[in-house]
């Protein structure tokens, strides 16, 4: 392919395409720069109160201080731990349950109303119960995180499994494939795209789970920093924790996006 000669029009087309891509990226960077610059200038010239809004330089300074003291790493690690465990357990369990419910029509029909109700129930409402059962610690937070992620995972993945092309399953059956073979050779590969998009959704949900848990009950973590900062009216701390949270969440999202790219390469 690389040796193929194209017309000038094709190179023009490619150039236009690239220009558009660069323009998009530049605009995105410009928005970020404008946001932080505006924030900084507005608070520096007293248009907005730096007590309520903090400022990027103050946040950066605090990040530097907390990095040196090790506090930032410590709290980030606590939250990251809870999030990753919640994400992994909920995704794994959700996948397994979805498989079992796909396999057994009976169990699927039995569990359907329960899943629907559990899905519409705001899991935060179970916070008090979870704290009493698991104690005011990271166990409760992880459980909260799992609860928030697992139901959606089951529903999404099960939906993808049951929507598998019937004609392909008919082909498997005509070849005498067992139900396990149909799952691993036909249903699972067909669902790969949906599973990856479920992973992406789960990244966001597991952060919601762990921070929600930390806001309810915690002795450490970024959610703890948020609550603590709020209580002592230290907006610099609140903003810092928020910024760090944004950074970590984007990192995790990019990790999943990278995984998606690798899978796509493997698939095609």
């Amino acid at each position, binding site marked *: 392919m690389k040796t193929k000669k194209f017309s000038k029009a094709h190179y023009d087309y490619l150039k236009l395409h690239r220009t558009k891509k660069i323009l998009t990226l530049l605009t995105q960077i410009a928005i970020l720069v404008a946001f932080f610059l505006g924030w900084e200038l507005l608070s520096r010239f007293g248009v907005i109160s730096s007590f309520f809004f903090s400022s990027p330089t103050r946040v950066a300074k605090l990040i530097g201080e907390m990095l040196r003291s090790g506090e930032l790493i410590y709290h980030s690690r606590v939250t990251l731990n809870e999030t990753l465990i919640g994400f992994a357990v909920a995704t794994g369990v959700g996948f397994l349950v979805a498989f079992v419910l796909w396999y057994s029509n009976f169990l699927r029909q039995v569990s359907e109303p329960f899943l629907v109700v559990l899905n519409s129930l705001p899991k935060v409402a179970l916070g008090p119960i979870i704290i009493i059962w698991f104690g005011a610690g990271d166990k409760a937070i992880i459980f909260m995180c799992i609860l928030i992620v697992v139901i959606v995972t089951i529903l999404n993945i099960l939906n993808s499994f049951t929507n598998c092309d019937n*004609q*392909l399953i*008919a*082909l*498997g*059956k*005509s*070849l*005498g*494939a067992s139900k396990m*073979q149909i799952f691993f*050779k*036909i249903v699972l*590969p067909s669902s*790969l795209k949906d599973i990856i998009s479920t992973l992406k959704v789960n990244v966001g949900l597991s952060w919601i789970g762990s921070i929600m848990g930390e806001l309810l009950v915690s002795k450490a973590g970024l959610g703890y920093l948020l609550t603590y900062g709020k209580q002592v009216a230290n907006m610099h701390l609140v903003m810092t924790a928020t910024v760090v949270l944004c950074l970590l969440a984007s990192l995790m999202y990019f990790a999943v996006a990278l995984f998606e790219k690798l899978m796509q390469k493997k*698939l*095609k």
Partner: protein
Amino acid sequence: MFVQVKNLNLIYQSQTDETQALNDISFDIEKQDFVAIVGPSGCGKTTILSLISGLIKPTSGTVLVDGKMPKPKDNLCGYMFQRDNLLPWKTIEKNIYFGLEIKKQASNERKNYAISLADKYGLKEFLKKYPSELSGGMRQRVALIRTLALKPELLLLDEPFSALDYQTRLNLCNDIFSIIKREKKTAILVTHDIQEAISMADKIIVLSARPAKIKAIHLPNFEANLTPFERRNTTKAKRLFEKIWQEIQDENKKI
């Protein structure tokens, strides 16, 4: 007799109703016969194939293929669908192996046989491509090779040409007909296209409206060595077409 269908009855159950799909169907097929089943739409043509392949069980009556009750697990029948059902995430080569893989017969010898079929029938250059890169006719050809790789004795063709455009359909009819004849396979073709049935089959079974009974059996007796395309243009084919057309028309009036 290679295939024996005797007093076949099938009643479908559903919550609101029970529907008799087949009513006392009996016919025989000799080895290397090419039989076509035609009839008004929804009369249960595909059901007969499902019964012969053993995918569903009859309410009463028997199906024997090579003297045994058919099961999808044995290698006796090869099923070909209206859609090629190629797996989009596998290359053509891997798709051709798919049946062998499911039946756990993907030995090198069987794979080589599959590849030799692909070679013989003009798919060699496509082996590393993906289904989305092939035309509909080519894809259906891959589906046939996937089926033949299992060395089935009996091919069940469930309207395999109906999703294709006219030109491709006529060409593929010729190709698949000659492949089946050359590989000396027995075949049952279900179709709603009367001309297609006449052009390919040695024996044409016309079904009535639901519940399907056998309305007529025709033996066209074309001269040997005519391709389906050549058969289409004979006066014999035209006369037979009118006859079968009328038979199905009568049935359609009953619905």
